[in-house]
């Protein structure tokens, strides 16, 4: 809200540069975004927190300055008005939405342009000058925080009724918009129809124009909650509605009306008519308990009683002191103060936050342990980056075109989740797999000219399982192009480069089973099982999909990290290293090429049992030297017994056994 420095000084007696005022206000919670110098004055733009309805006026800001600088506040005098016997009847049909309503009749005004001083003042704070009557209502609103509305009294039929709109009623507001009204809208109506939307905007019909002779000046207090609701429904926010929403001082309503009335007859002529008022229950602020001891225990400072008392006096609050417990009564404008803690804030705000010492709380409070998911993510991140894969963090929204991608990962009754009110229709779907995000990123990378990438993301995915909304943590990997390269050799991304990462991360506890995903290559896709359960998948993007998305060969893998216990990733039981010699044995096995290699390796593991420390498939050969339809798998075995040196005879025995087992699956050992 823009304020004028000279205008503030009308209400508070200070003699300091505006920068000092701005600094103190900012530190006390009213941030001054800008000081603008104009002619012989300054404009201070005050940003008002949501709870400080009382500061939405020159008087309110002046009151803060008065408290901060301990300078006297000059409240406006109550005008003495000479009334004539003429008025307009009012009826408040919805008192729950309108605790106070006043309507002043002013007879025989001359509507015209405002005097220069008035025009200059309101224009400097950003209000457009319309005519003298309307300008006065705006001027007083800005000054005192009480929204006012002037009706052309001759357009009001019989009396003014404050009521909820009837279904189907319509009104054309001052902005020229025709608006359909519902029962949740509070209107100001005459005998025939609505003439204004309460607390938001007046109607066009009853607008004060150059032809207006008699004025009905409304000053009222409308419920902050309903005003906010109406403003939302109507998508209409005005200076008035903003003030009602944050809450105005209900005890200012009549005074503001009187001050405006006095100005109108002074500047526009005319006679003061009667004021009709509805104010059944006068608002009196309640006293609040304040315990100085508890204040010190919560804030960590010990101001003297007189210092604290002084703060409340400066704010205009009343203080009753009892032993250990005070009763403090705020002023009626401060509707934000209802709890003891609210009073604490007032004290520290005025004393200054800088007076509070800075102390570390040293007590150990390790009751909550760090989330295992967090630890797991850290370990995974460290491991996978050490394998050359780089991290990305992408948005949770995925392009709508990828909505049903990788559908086969989930059971049929699982669906993706969309937001009801997206910013853009194409970004309404929450990802149910990271692969969707990574595919989208791959497209960008290629478009930017980067065809080599090796990326991972660890993040949340979302889906709906029956009626429950689920979120889980996944790991996604996408690889493409060259992974390691130089001018003389290169390693390209492949199904196996991606698979290798997973094997390293998940310690070879995974099983890969051929699977079908419509967007993946039919011959190069697998579901990944952990302890018999599908926990992920891996595959090459289907060439048809790749072509449509203008992508090269892309390899994708995704794992449901939540399914893996933290222990899998941390250091397990440490084995003592063996000093016995390793026996290295290379073997070649010829099997039908349709046989999955896992059948062979499981035989190796079965035959050599725990003497097989590890093994490596170092060559795979198909070609002229072996029968058609077969494949030659060359393994390098590392054999070692835990407790003795393995003998050549023992190994040969096992090799014989291996030969028999291989024969069972149609394979044979190839002699060197």
């Amino acid at each position, binding site marked *: 809200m823009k304020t004028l420095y000279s205008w503030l000084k009308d209400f508070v007696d200070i003699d300091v540069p505006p920068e000092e005022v701005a600094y103190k206000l900012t530190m006390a919670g009213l941030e001054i975004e800008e000081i603008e110098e104009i002619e012989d004055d300054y404009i201070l733009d005050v940003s008002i927190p949501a709870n400080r309805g009382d500061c939405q006026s020159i008087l309110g800001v002046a009151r803060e300055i008065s408290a901060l600088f301990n300078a006297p506040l000059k409240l406006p005098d109550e005008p003495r008005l000479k009334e004539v016997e003429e008025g307009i009847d009012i009826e408040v049909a919805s008192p729950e939405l309108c605790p106070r309503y006043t309507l002043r009749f002013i007879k025989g005004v001359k509507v015209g342009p405002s005097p220069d001083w008035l025009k200059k003042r309101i224009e400097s704070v950003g209000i457009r000058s319309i005519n003298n009557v309307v300008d006065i209502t705006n001027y007083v609103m800005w000054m005192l925080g009480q929204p006012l509305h002037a009706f052309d009294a001759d357009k009001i039929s019989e009396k003014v009724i404050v009521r909820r709109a009837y279904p189907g009623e319509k009104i054309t507001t001052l902005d020229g918009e025709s608006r359909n009204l519902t029962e949740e809208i509070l209107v100001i109506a005459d005998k025939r129809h609505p003439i204004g939307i309460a607390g938001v905007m007046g109607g066009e019909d009853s607008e004060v124009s150059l032809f207006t002779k008699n004025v009905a000046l409304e000053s009222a207090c409308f419920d902050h909650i309903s005003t906010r609701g109406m403003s939302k429904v109507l998508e209409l926010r005005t200076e008035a509605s903003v003030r009602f929403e944050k809450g105005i001082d209900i005890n200012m309503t009549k005074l503001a009306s009187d001050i405006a009335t006095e100005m109108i007859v002074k500047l526009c002529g005319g006679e003061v008519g009667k004021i009709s008022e509805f104010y059944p229950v006068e608002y009196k602020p309640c006293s609040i308990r304040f315990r100085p001891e508890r204040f010190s225990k919560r804030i960590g400072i010990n101001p003297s009683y007189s210092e604290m008392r002084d703060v409340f006096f400066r704010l205009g609050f009343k203080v009753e002191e009892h032993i250990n417990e005070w009763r403090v009564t705020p002023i009626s404008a401060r509707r934000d103060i209802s709890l003891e803690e609210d009073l604490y804030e007032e004290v520290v705000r005025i004393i200054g936050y800088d007076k509070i010492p800075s102390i570390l709380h040293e007590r150990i409070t390790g009751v909550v342990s760090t989330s295992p998911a967090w630890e797991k993510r850290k370990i995974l991140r460290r491991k996978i980056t050490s394998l050359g894969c780089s991290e990305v963090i992408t948005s949770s929204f995925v392009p709508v075109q990828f909505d049903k991608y990788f559908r086969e990962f989930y059971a049929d009754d699982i669906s993706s989740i969309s937001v009801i009110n997206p*910013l853009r229709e194409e970004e309404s779907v929450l990802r149910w797999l990271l692969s969707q995000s990574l595919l989208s990123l791959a497209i960008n990378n290629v478009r930017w000219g980067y065809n080599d990438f090796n990326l991972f993301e660890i993040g949340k995915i979302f889906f709906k399982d029956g009626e429950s909304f689920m979120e889980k943590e996944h790991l996604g990997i996408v690889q493409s192009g060259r992974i390691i390269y130089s001018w003389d050799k290169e390693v390209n991304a492949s199904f196996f480069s991606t698979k290798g990462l997973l094997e390293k991360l998940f310690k070879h506890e995974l099983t890969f089973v051929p699977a079908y995903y419509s967007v993946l290559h039919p011959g190069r896709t697998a579901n990944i099982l952990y302890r018999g359960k599908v926990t992920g998948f891996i595959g090459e993007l289907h060439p048809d999909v790749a072509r449509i998305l203008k992508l090269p060969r892309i390899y994708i893998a995704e794992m449901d990290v939540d399914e893996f216990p933290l222990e899998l990733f941390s250091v397990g039981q440490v084995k003592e290293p063996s000093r016995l010699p390793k026996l290295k044995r290379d073997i070649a096995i010829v099997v039908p090429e349709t046989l999955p290699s896992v059948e062979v390796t499981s035989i190796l593991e079965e035959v050599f049992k725990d003497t097989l420390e590890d093994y490596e498939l170092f060559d795979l050969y198909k070609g002229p030297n072996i029968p058609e339809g077969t494949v030659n798998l060359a393994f390098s075995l590392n054999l070692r017994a835990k407790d003795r040196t393995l003998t050549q005879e023992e190994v040969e025995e096992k090799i014989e056994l291996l030969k028999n087992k291989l024969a069972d699956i149609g394979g044979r050992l190839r002699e060197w």
Partner: protein
Amino acid sequence: MSSMELELNNLRSEALKEISSINSLDNLREIEIKYLGRKGVLNQLLKELSTAPLEERPELGGIINQIKLEIIREIESKRTLLEEREKAKKLEEERIDVTLPGMNISPGRLHPLTLIIERVEEIFRGLGFTVVEGFEMETDYYNFEALNIPWYHPARDTQDSFYITDKFLLRTQTSPVQIRVMEKTKPPFKIIAPGRVYRRDQPTARHSPVFHQIEGMAVDKDITFAHLKGTLDAFAHALFGSDVSTRFRADYFPFTEPSGEFAISCIFCKGKGCRVCSYSGWIEILGCGMVHPKVLEVGGIDPEEYSGFAFGMGWDRLAMLTYNINDIRFFLENHPEFLVQF
């Protein structure tokens, strides 16, 4: 000199001549065989010695052996020479251009948001905090109501939400974690809760509809605002250096009372005033305050017995400040040229 002696002399000079003219190890081996082999010239001569007169045999034998030794010596020294030459040749052939580029093995890099949170986590762990996490899909209750933000509260205006149903939404702040922790945990505790949040804001350089926050909370019997200041001062000094100044000023949040805003002296202009700090010399880092008594009550904690502080900061914003990045959208865009710098 007998004819035999003469012959031997010729043989010797011929052999030495031959050896000295040899240029390859293969040829040298041939010569070796020719003279020194089992059926070589010298062995042949020794055999033929039996035909020589008896009294000449010792002398001739001596000469032959001497020649043999001489040839061996010559061959060996020639071999060493040739081997050295060959080795040198091979090394020369293996010469590479050391100015050619090395192999491109890219390190796996962490995302800048991860680098920041690891630092933040380390600092708060050192101050006795642990890390907890919450849900990104929350109910209106946890995201707003429980945090003292009823439906009509003006604070909702600045937190326009993405709704999934009329009750579920994407959390607009990490603060719901406060409620979830209090519901499950008896004080004392100190936690930070980093996570992703969502607000229905048009993407700009300063705002992203998907961004991240770090929530913090400490509850115990004797926690004061002074402890909040101490904790945040320690954090700011650890993250931005001990030479930054810090500042608290009053602010408003529905779920803390008293509330404050925490700022550090501008790290770019050292507080002199620049574009980043809008010429104020200060950069706002976070909002904080003492946990509102109503919020403690909602969490099942008696505000007469316990007190606590809470704070919430923009995680992306911390990264922007740390790395002097001007556009928040870079983080989720993941442009390779951006990421490669971390």
